[in-house]
């Protein structure tokens, strides 16, 4: 376990980051010009890291599989970005954000990293506003905030329901400025297929040009993996279709440890599945829980009647509704953290109270918010005794101003008007807290290979709070990695350009070519999607919102068998030397079929319930998660050792010096 040195600096928590920045080695500006860095992925973390590294003077190459860096899936984040600005004067502070995040993560994240995250969060807002990111503002011209799940303050900055888009376009703009200066070379429609190690250090990648099919070699002095999360393992998720684990998994297979793979976030408010043909799930922002109330019918017969279309939700009397979150968690109500809200929805639906055809949906109801806002508006506009209809109209306008684009999206997909009838929602896979293990400098266990954003395991522990992903991606990319990477690169100022004709590059390219050949030589019985859907079903049913040892063991076996079948019988049409979307998918699914098994293994070994990882065997009498701090207060980092089931466990013990580890309660 000696390998897992998290390199957290000594000293008081609040001074660690400043002290560390003062003590690490730097590269002087003239030498930065001689150093190349590869950044894989151009979302919030990759984009912001690339731009900042280029600003500092490094030569950066970015890679993304999309046709433009602007399309990375960070763009789909709706709700907002947290920052401890305390503009609302509601008692927020760096410490409180740090505390909320640790608690929200169910005491499974690294204290020093989270504190640093909270500390730089305020810089993010300053930086983004300077870049021209149009955050929502109040009438006075100052920045507006809203509230998200799991916290008691308003610290979320937002741009309507498109915060991720605006932040990503900010990072993309910063990248564009550096591309124009010649400091970033952007490779779009390129996919990293392998990491190249020279003398044990990350020195480059093998990438495939997705348009021509060419296999390319790219060298650098350091490689940053910012390729996002692996939720597409579940087939159906709120991820984009192309999201994959390839870069991270290839890195893992080259020696980087993979931490906490089983920590998955299942987001409570997504549009329910409508049929077998479904390719993706759509999220409804958590911000909706500010005003929406979640409920199911109190009586089973009402739920049945609703499912069969005999009863409309609006016809159900108030006393026949079960606002189960408000009932179970009076302190936080509808704004409990995501893992809690998701599990509660599953519990109700499993008990037979689900409200759509398949019984896998609950209501998110805006009726009381509409009426409340409507009355408020009527009062402030001096109306005397307005009737219900007027109040409703006024209220609908206000709700539209707040959530209009989300409501419109819902209506387009479901074909129901959410102003008139409650939305139907159900949890869906949304984010993965696990990822490549990194130290305080964001370096993986491979020297010179870094991981940022969702691709690392970092800051969210076993559950991520809303509006924290954007914060972490940008913190890593703008404010952490560009500085910590200098500590490593300071040894490379005399190295000179890394040649790509070394035996190591030859071998890596050869492996990649062999793999493609193998993928295309399957017997051709089933399509890639067939396997992906099967894998998704296993994951969702046996490694999903609640897990147990028996099913996890089954899952491991089933995934291994499916993987074998895949390699023998998959059908990939077309040729490798041209645009070939099926081949792209095949490579990604092949990796998921390995990761899935490790995921189940990790979930199986963690004999406790924490955050997004809920083991049925470990729960309180009331059905709440039961953590085991004595035995599992550690990061599980897996070392690749051939088959996923043989992966070797390394532990990083989590120490909490500044926070008291408590049972998480939102009651």
């Amino acid at each position, binding site marked *: 376990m000696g390998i897992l040195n998290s390199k957290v600096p000594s000293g008081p928590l609040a001074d660690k980051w400043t002290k560390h920045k003062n003590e690490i080695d730097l590269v002087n500006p003239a030498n930065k010009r001689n150093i190349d860095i590869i950044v894989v992925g151009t979302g919030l973390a990759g984009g912001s890291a690339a731009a900042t590294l280029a600003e500092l003077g490094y030569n950066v190459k970015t890679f993304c599989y999309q046709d433009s860096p602007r399309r990375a899936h960070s763009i789909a984040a709706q709700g907002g970005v947290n920052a401890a600005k305390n503009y609302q004067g509601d008692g927020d502070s760096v410490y409180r954000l740090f505390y909320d995040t640790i608690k929200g993560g169910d005491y499974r994240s690294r204290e020093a990293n989270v504190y640093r995250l909270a500390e730089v969060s305020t810089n993010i807002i*300053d930086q983004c506003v300077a870049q021209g990111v*149009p955050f929502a503002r109040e009438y006075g011209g100052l920045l507006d905030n809203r509230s998200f799940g799991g916290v008691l303050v308003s610290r979320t900055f937002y741009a309507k329901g498109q915060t991720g888009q605006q932040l990503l376009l900010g990072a993309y703009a910063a990248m564009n400025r550096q591309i124009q200066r010649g400091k970033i070379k952007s490779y779009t429609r390129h996919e990293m297929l392998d990491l190249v190690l020279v003398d044990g250090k990350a020195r480059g990648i093998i990438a495939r040009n997705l348009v021509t099919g060419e296999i390319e070699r790219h060298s650098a002095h350091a490689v940053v993996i910012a390729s996002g999360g692996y939720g597409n393992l579940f087939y159906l998720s709120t991820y984009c*279709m192309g999201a994959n684990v390839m870069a991270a998994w290839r890195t893992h297979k080259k020696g980087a440890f993979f931490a906490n793979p089983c920590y998955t976030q299942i987001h409570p408010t997504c549009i329910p599945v409508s049929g077998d043909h479904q390719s993706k799930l759509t999220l409804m922002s958590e911000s909706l829980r500010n005003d929406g109330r979640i409920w199911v019918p109190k009586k089973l017969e009402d739920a049945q009647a609703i499912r069969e279309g005999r009863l409309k939700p609006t016809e159900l009397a108030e006393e026949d509704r079960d606002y189960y979150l408000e009932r179970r968690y009076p302190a936080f109500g509808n704004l409990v953290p995501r893992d809690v809200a998701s599990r509660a929805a599953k519990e109700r639906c499993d008990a037979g109270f689900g409200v759509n055809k398949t019984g896998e949906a609950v209501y998110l109801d805006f009726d009381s918010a509409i009426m409340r806002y409507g009355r408020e508006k009527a009062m402030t506009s001096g109306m005397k005794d307005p009737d219900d209809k007027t109040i409703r109209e006024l209220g609908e306008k206000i709700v539209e101003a707040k959530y209009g684009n989300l409501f419109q999206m819902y209506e387009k997909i479901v074909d129901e008007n959410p102003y008139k009838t409650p939305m139907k929602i159900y949890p869906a896979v949304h984010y993965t807290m696990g990822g490549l293990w990194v130290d305080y400098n964001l370096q993986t266990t491979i020297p010179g290979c870094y991981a940022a954003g969702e691709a690392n395991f970092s800051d969210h522990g076993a559950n991520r709070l809303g509006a924290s992903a954007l914060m972490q991606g940008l913190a890593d990319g703008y404010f952490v990695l560009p500085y910590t990477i200098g500590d490593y690169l300071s040894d490379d100022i005399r190295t000179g350009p890394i040649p790509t004709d070394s035996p190591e590059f030859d071998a890596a390219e050869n492996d990649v070519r062999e793999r493609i050949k193998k993928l295309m030589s399957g017997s051709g019985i089933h399509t890639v999607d067939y396997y992906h859907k099967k894998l998704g079903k296993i994951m969702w049913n046996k490694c999903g919102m609640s897990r147990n040892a028996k099913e996890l063991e089954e899952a491991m076996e089933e995934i291994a068998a499916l993987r074998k079948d895949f390699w023998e019988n998959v059908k990939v049409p077309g040729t490798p030397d041209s645009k070939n979307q099926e081949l792209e998918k095949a490579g990604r699914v092949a990796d998921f079929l390995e990761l899935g098994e490790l995921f189940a293994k990790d979930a199986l070994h963690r004999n406790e319930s924490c955050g997004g990882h809920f083991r049925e065997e470990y729960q309180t009498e009331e059905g709440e998660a039961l953590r085991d701090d004595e035995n599992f207060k550690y990061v599980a980092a897996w070392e690749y050792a051939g088959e996923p089931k043989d992966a070797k466990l390394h532990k990083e013990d989590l120490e909490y010096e500044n926070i008291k580890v408590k049972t998480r309660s939102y009651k």
Partner: protein
Amino acid sequence: MKLYLKIWRQKDAKSKGAMVDYTLDGVEEDMSFLEMLDILNEDLIAKGEEPVEFDHDCREGICGTCSLMINGRPHGPDSLITACQLHMRSFNDGDEIVIEPWRAKAFPVIKDLITDRSAFDRIQQAGGYISVNTSGRPVDANAIPIEKEHADDSFNAATCIGCGACVAACKNASAMLFTSAKVSQFALLPQGQVEAAERVQNMVRQMDLEGFGNCTNTGACEVECPKGISLENIARMNREYLSATLKG
């Protein structure tokens, strides 16, 4: 429902393409348009044919990747959505659906329905940013209050997803709506004022270099824009450019 599809097939950028007819049965109303194409592709692969390649990613209308001309309209018949948000309930049993890639000289076809929209990236690179370093110490975010109206207008311009529907819809394949949205976003903010003149000139120059057509104010772009970006942005850019050029 049963559909008669006419789809543009083109092997690669150099090959000549053609429309190919497909009949697809068993399409359900609550499928999205792209899910309908997924089913077609599964069928084609099963039959040993090459699937139809089309660009798509987020499938929730925000990444701007999907780009299909459906029955002569970008993103299909519905308004304020992208093709991935279009659902089959907008069609009827027995319908013929013509599916083509965006057509513009500046957006060459890569394969089938996929086009190369990197021209948009280059327009952004020419000036679609505010020159501020991360490494610098910016002022506190609340130090510059911005009038809500300007902030909202700026946001509305910034919601452009760069899908290219404006170019595809325009009879002249003009990229004015796209370019003006970014120019407007920054022109409306105090942070963006400093470089405003240079920005608009550089971005327009790049836009022209890419071979997009001229704007003739037909307004088709605004109607087809999935994010409802307003023509006012084009007027604003015309004004910004004029004053930038007159000032020298």
